[in-house]
């Protein structure tokens, strides 16, 4: 997507770029939104509903969404389940491995705010938005598979209004919550916030 992004830069600075930009935006958004492959970041109970959503009865494929457990192949990370302080570095690193443009869906109360594990616990990160930029929140404990599919459709709407222009590109907040967790075997030059 680097090419498209650079295109956005060029067009934005040039005179009359706005009109062309809008058409390019429309094309890019159309192509980006139609087939969102999901990276299932299922950690806990919500993962069961994530699986249910992609199998027989609910059949995610009909929306062009397909769970693919490989960060390099996917567009949207569905964080389904509780994120603990031990798990957070791994989630962040997987997010970093995904190719741009990328989106995040926080599925379930745990991923939104810690949910039932907000109080009294020492090991749960209160919401995945503490370290990832979340686009769509789906409430529920667990949300029904239909809600997840609705969430994906909402994400498409968001994508449809997006732009390749650089000043409208979201800034990823990539700071981890202070934690006793070890960093995840980081190698030099890798995993730094961009």
């Amino acid at each position, binding site marked *: 997507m680097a090419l498209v992004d650079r295109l956005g830069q060029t067009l934005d600075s040039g005179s009359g770029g706005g009109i062309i930009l809008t058409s390019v935006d429309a094309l890019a958004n159309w192509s980006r939104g139609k087939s969102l492959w999901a990276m299932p970041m299922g950690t806990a109970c919500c993962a069961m509903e994530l699986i*249910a959503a992609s199998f*027989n009865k609910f059949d995610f494929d009909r929306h062009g969404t397909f769970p693919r*457990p490989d960060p390099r192949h996917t567009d949207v990370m569905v964080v389904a389940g509780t994120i*603990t302080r*031990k798990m957070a570095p791994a989630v962040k690193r997987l997010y970093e*491995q995904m190719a741009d443009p990328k989106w995040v869906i926080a599925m379930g109360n745990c991923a939104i705010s810690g949910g*039932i*594990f907000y109080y009294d*616990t020492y*090991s749960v990160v209160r919401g995945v938005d503490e370290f990832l930029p979340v686009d769509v929140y789906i409430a529920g404990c667990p949300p029904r598979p239909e809600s997840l599919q609705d969430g994906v459709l909402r994400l498409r709407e968001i994508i449809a209004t997006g732009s390749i222009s650089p000043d409208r590109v979201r800034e990823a907040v990539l700071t981890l919550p202070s934690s006793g967790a070890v960093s995840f075997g980081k190698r030099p030059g890798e995993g730094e916030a961009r």
Partner: protein
Amino acid sequence: MSVEIESRECVVRGDGGVVEQLVVNVGPSHPSTHGVCRVIVHLDGEVVTKAEPVIGYLHRGIEKMAENRTYLQVVPLTDRLDYVGSMYANWAYCRALERLAGIRVPERAEYLRVIVCEMQRIASHMMSLGSAAADSGAATMFIYAFDQRERIIELFEELCGARLTYNYVRPGGVSFDVPEGWVETALAFCRTHRAALTEMDRLYFGNVIARDRLKGVGVLSAADAVAWGASGPVARGSGVNFDLRKHDPYSVYPRFDFDVPTGSNGDCYDRARVRLFECYESCRILEQAIAQMEPGPFRTEGLPRLLAPRPGDAYDHIESARGSLGVYLVADGTPRPYRMKVRSPAFCNLALLPMLAEGHMLSDLVVILGSLDPVFGEVDR
């Protein structure tokens, strides 16, 4: 993050030869680790020389949280332990509490508990069989199994409104009586389920590739199973005839006629097959329970909202889909538990992984892990 090489090192083999050993990290987010398990695998070529599970990626501190909730508020927390079979942890916790506080449970509630737990066993085994099969490449089996699971979840939804976190078994009974027509649907499910099981048996266990993948892999001896505290289908697959429903009968289980399937070789094949046969037995129990159930109250009326059992401790356990699931409660006379400990079967079963995986191929590791059927909500708590 899924699978990556951590290091290479040279080790001297027993016979004096030098091999290059590869240390590979699998997980914690790997599609076939059934959740968030990380395994650090030492490989000699493709053969596992040492596998070390790293757990705790889902450690949510439920035991600590319980210390600041009232006894009733803990019940929803227990749902989140074993999220493939939420009813079990509900029930185990309620049993421990009922023992501690001396609550009597009406008979109909006991039957309802048995009914939902046997259905939950089927649902849980379907998940386990399906995902273990998908790990070894048989994705079709997953779809068949998931179809069955989805039917049970629909029944549960009709019963208590939730698909996954039921909060159904409560201290002193259950939260709702069965709705009209539910029992008939459940019986009809039993009939179709038997046919589906037979079909799955032929589809998966009759398949020569699946048999080759499973037979002789990850052999666990009966003595080891006992010494390592394994329980449930993992122990029974090795021929250890140990099932709390039979050997420490609780609730109304002594009134039912059922068998405990056991394996003989203790390999992945036997463990998976035991699960399949348990589903038949669950159908049998289900039908008997529905036939024997009498109308009556389904919960104890007049329980105070703030239960404050007298100081002491109590342990009680049930046979969950993964083995003996126990809850140990310590009370200090206040309305909150002083300490809650969950004895999780999956935790004990997973401890076997290093022993079972040694000497097998890397691709067998996921099959072995699948056959142990860990649920990480329960392993890590």
